[in-house]
């Protein structure tokens, strides 16, 4: 996969958040590429099975495309954090730097960065959520204790999104909780075991907490916690597929 395809997928990942459909003009603006070339590239991506594209209905990601897009976005945002937190590169420059570097970032290095930074959950500008790792670990603790090779872990089987990305009334199943054991345990004790069905009952404005209904009780989870709780991607959320 070429670097430019990856850039497209990343752009689509961002543009199709919140169930939106991306349009050629939006993509062209975002990547600073002429609409004609965008159209051509989208055709290619559609042929490869990464996007659903029709001229008048816009673009959405397929499951396969979403997975790739998320992976790239994760690498990009992790790199931003690394450049910012460790190498002290300014907020205005991390994005561009990360764009250049992400395509060469291996899973091994991605994992090492994630561990070094203690499973960060947000970009340095504190706006966007870093997607969950897709390396098939059941918890960050397991990842920490796992040896070097990643071959045996294999990729995660399901696509996941963070609770913070869901809308009111949406339902989803808990897949993975990122972070140290403490947070994980507290949430487990409150009933958020893997596979549990939760419903978003309310989302407070201004990056406030979300309230979920779980096992007949109601829990308020702050934004930080919500960003670290991942659920199996509900059918009608995110970029479709």
């Amino acid at each position, binding site marked *: 996969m070429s670097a430019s395809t990856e850039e497209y997928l990343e752009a689509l990942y961002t543009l199709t958040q919140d169930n939106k459909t991306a349009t050629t003009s939006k993509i062209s603006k975002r990547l600073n590429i002429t609409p004609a070339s965008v159209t051509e590239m989208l055709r290619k991506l559609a042929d490869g099975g990464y996007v659903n594209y029709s001229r008048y209905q816009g673009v959405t990601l397929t499951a396969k495309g979403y997975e790739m897009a998320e992976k790239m976005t994760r690498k990009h945002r992790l790199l931003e954090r690394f450049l910012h937190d460790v190498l002290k590169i300014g907020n205005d420059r991390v994005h561009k730097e990360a764009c250049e570097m992400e395509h060469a970032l291996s899973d091994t290095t991605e994992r090492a960065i994630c561990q070094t930074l203690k499973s960060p959950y947000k970009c340095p500008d504190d706006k966007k959520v870093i997607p969950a790792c897709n390396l098939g670990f059941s*918890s960050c603790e397991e990842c920490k204790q796992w040896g070097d090779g990643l071959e045996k872990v294999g990729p995660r089987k399901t696509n996941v999104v963070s609770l913070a990305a869901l809308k009111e009334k949406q339902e989803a199943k808990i897949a993975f909780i990122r972070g140290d054991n403490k*947070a994980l345990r507290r949430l487990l004790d409150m009933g958020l*075991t893997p596979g549990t069905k939760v419903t978003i009952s*309310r989302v407070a404005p201004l990056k*406030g907490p979300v309230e979920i209904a779980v096992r007949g009780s109601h829990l308020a989870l*702050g934004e930080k916690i919500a960003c670290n709780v991942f659920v199996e991607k509900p059918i009608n959320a995110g970029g479709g597929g």
Partner: protein
Amino acid sequence: MKEGRHRHRRGHQNGRRLTIALAGNANVGKSVIFNQLTGSQQIIGNWPGKTVERAEGSLHIDGYDITIVDLPGIYSLSTYSMEELVTREYIAHEKPDVIINVVGAAVLERNLFFTLQLIEMEVPLVICLNQMDIAEDKGITIDSQKLQEILGRSVVTTVASTGKGIRELIEKAIGVVGRPVQRQPVAFRNDIEEDTKELSGMIEAEQLQLEYASRWVAIKLLEGDPTIKKLVGSKSTSVIRAAETLSNRLEELHQEPGFVAVASERYALANQIVHDVQTQKTVKLSLSDRLDRLATHKVFGYIVSLGVIGLLLIWTFTIGTLLSNLFSKAFSFFQPVDPKLSGTLLSALWNGVFGGFVAGVTLVVPYVVPFYIMLAIMEDSGILTRVAFMTDSAMHQIGLHGKAIIPLILGLGCNVPAICSTRIMGTRRERLLAAFAITFAPCAARTIIIMGLVAAFVGIWWALALYVIDILLLVVVVKIAVKAVPGELTGLIMEMHSFKRPSLSVVTRQTWARTKSLITLVFPIYMAGTAIVQGVYALGWFGPVNKALSFLTVGWLRLPVVAGVLLIFGAVRKELILLMAVAIFGSNIAGSLTPVQLIVLALVGTIYPCLATVGVLTKEFGWKAAWAIIGANTAIAIVVGGVAARALALIFH
């Protein structure tokens, strides 16, 4: 249960001693039951985490002499939080004769997760299915007979707030005593059960003499509980080795850490039980749900939250002033409220005692009691968790999360219980920061100073300005402290319980309990305080103290020289600043102090901490942290006071 208590008082000397502990999730009604049984006045309210320390009370019934223990609410017996650890140790080491597991019927599944853990511990257990009325309102019916069969433990249904079922509960609990401990477990349904059996078999065979039940130890080993691992490790390496093999296999098989696998299985079991015993009708949106929608609405939610805090302050303000004026008039006919600084020492002392009492009645009670009433209503309604929900993102701006607003609101009454309540925060760092913030919250005593000195003699707008300054100061100072204390903010995890109508009896009892402790604890201090001040004044000892402090009071703060003594007494109780000022200057304080001096005195008086706060800070955080907070407060009070004295001089000229 009151009759029981009185009826058996006579014979209780020879009664059999029993200890019964109340354990369960937060906010299920443990303290209501405790109060019913013992006639005590534990704090009750509709938000999780009120009881922070175990409380004991006694009940004499049917010839038994029973100590009832109220434990903090917890969700699990892991060692994630202090409360959980303390409860676990309490159950294991102090071995109460019976544990009453209070269960919220409306949230059965989550509560059963904890019940199953108690059953694993093989403790003598009675299950109290409380809040049956709330469950009913939600369309939930529970077959308690069937639940009893499945769990193999007695189940009693109750409505604690009305006392329904409490008598039966205590009888059942007594009935359990002396019977052999039920060991019948609720079996897991898969390989975890086999592993558990295998391990517990080993533990029993080796006769390890552990204080805990072998099944429970086996489960904890599979979960990888560090405390239990160490305990067992010190006695038998073969068990530990077997446990490690089994838990590795478990992780391999379930593709998740041992504790996740076990928790999942336990919840699956709870879910199954709920499925078997509970039926759920759909009910239409209740009033409580509608209110909930309003209180967490994108726009109105904020208005409601601000309204709650504003109402508390304004209510205290207006009702307080009204009552204060009324009481002063009523008392004015006693006359001797004016200070007496000449005459014999004895008459000065007596005058002080009486003056202190009158001042307490006319200045303190009118403000504090209305506040307590309103607070109790809000606490019991469930609005506080909504305020926490709505203010979470705003609280993040100062580096805390939404839950911290609850202790802060309590702090508008008195900082001491508010600082104890910071235990609802997740980490020590958060508790510390929340406590620091609370030391700036305009508590009732501060309100009294602001009202008595500024609103009365300078103007209501200046009084309001002081509030605003106080809150701005809180924000700025906490923001700085957040930077200074290393560590990261954990997120908000809070259970939201449904709204309910506050119960009159809870509100009155709670108000009375708080007022009583105010009167018994604080009135003597007032009376002694004013008496001592007048006595010291009469003896002419004021001079040296004031002189020693004059560089600060006169030089820097530009206050009259007597302010030194005022501030010293203010450290004992904040209100004393006002009461002493009245004692020294007479009721028309403005005759002796300029408006600027009044404002500066009020400002300094509100910022520096009182002794009770110092005490509770030391108890909760150790002297180092406590003195850091106190030092910071005092320094800020002095700096702000001095600056204000100079800035205000420009305005008032």
